[in-house]
């Protein structure tokens, strides 16, 4: 295996179909997308959330789905444990989520700590009816907290040393999920 390039887990048509499936799953479970909003976690959940937003808008024929980008830097629990401070990203949440269904979106679900921080950050925008989690990759055996995703693109079982990275057309030239045995 080429450790510098990484092993390809998903790309091309299958990648597209996976996103398509995720959108349809949400629409099936939520009976359309009424009284619901999308929240992408900065920075890496946002490219996925952008795609899901576009597809859901097209599938439902709506252009008014509330869509926010949530920065969780100030809510993280590893502040003061890192060598350097974490860089915050722009937080773009211009609506309240009180009484709404929230679809929280991130690229890789690993320890669950990011999601915990995101849930803490979401509290500041009201009391949602419920929050569900969508991730493109679920690393099932590496959780530190009792957090599970409701919509999963691809489940990856790997050791802690391994690393899974998602590339996007917009930023990397192509859509793909790569697997590295070491960081």
């Amino acid at each position, binding site marked *: 295996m080429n450790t510098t390039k990484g092993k390809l887990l998903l790309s091309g048509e299958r990648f597209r179909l996976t996103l398509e499936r995720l959108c349809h799953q949400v629409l099936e479970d939520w009976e359309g997308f009424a009284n619901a909003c999308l929240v992408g976690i900065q920075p890496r959940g946002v490219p996925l959330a952008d795609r899901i937003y576009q597809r859901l808008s097209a599938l439902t024929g709506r252009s008014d789905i509330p869509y926010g980008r949530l*920065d969780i*830097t*100030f*809510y993280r629990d590893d*502040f*003061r*444990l*890192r*060598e*350097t*401070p*974490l*860089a*915050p*990203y*722009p*937080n773009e*949440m211009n609506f*309240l989520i009180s009484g709404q269904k929230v679809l929280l979106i991130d690229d890789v679900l690993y320890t669950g700590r990011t999601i915990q921080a995101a849930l*803490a*950050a979401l509290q*500041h*925008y009201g009391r949602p009816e419920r929050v569900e989690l969508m991730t493109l990759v679920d690393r099932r055996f590496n959780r530190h907290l009792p957090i599970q995703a409701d919509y999963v693109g691809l489940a990856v079982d790997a050791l802690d040393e391994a690393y899974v990275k998602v590339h996007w057309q917009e930023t990397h030239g192509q859509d793909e999920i790569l697997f590295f045995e070491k960081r």
Partner: protein
Amino acid sequence: MKALSTRHLLGIKDLTENDIQLIFETADNFKEVINRPIKKVPSLRDITVANLFFESSTRTRVSFELAERRLSADIVNFTASSSSVSKGETLLDTVNNILAMKVDMVVMRHPAPGACAFLSRHIPANIINAGDGTHEHPTQALLDAYSIRERLGDVAGKKIAIIGDILHSRVALSNVFCLQKLGAHVRVCGPPTLIPKHYAALGVEVSHNVRQTLEWCDVANVLRIQLERQDIRYFPSLREYHQYFGITRQMLDALQRDIVVMHPGPINRGVELTSDVADSRQSIILQQVENGVAIRMAVLYLLAAERT
């Protein structure tokens, strides 16, 4: 992400340009936070900050306190007038007693120049200088430069005039350091008695002509006449000062273009600025106050991020 090159904020002199830019970028995020419906984040929830004010202050103290509260820090407030300082306790004893109660950061204002630097050599907490005598007032300079960046897009290459009582002003010295590090051209302007000779050695222009300075500058940062620090008379009367160095609506209207007017407060209306200047749309005095909270949140956040 980059970290600050220092573990205390004693003065702008110790900061690099990268430090200042990092503080500005972080402040951008906090400015968004303080405009949310719920203006609070939990970053500093495990940190206790002592605000030690050995000299009177309203704006700076309230601004720091708000910044600390919005980062969820625990706060201990201390003002010299109501403390054991009036019973003869030394600075080090006072602070050590407060630190024995497990305080992580100290924000201090003190009438003696260098008081914060002295403290930083003796105690383990992170120290933020909130003004030490006539020496430095780093967070004020940061928020001034940040407000200029917000209004004009950039600080580099801009012409900034600091007008008024330069001699007694810690804001002036910190502003000169900060603006120079960011690549601005700086000029100080005031009566000869209120501009120390050594300012020329800092590489700033010195002028005694307000009208000509206003024509030159993009931004006029107007300082208060600090009567409480003036042991002798540096000019005949406030009325005469206003006639020679006060800024009026007519003077601004006579210029060919709009300049930005700033003031660190508190304003002596009718002395260094007339009311119609202070309240005009060219004035960004209240934006400075708003930005002060964001800048102080950024400084507290970046200093507290030090690994424990």
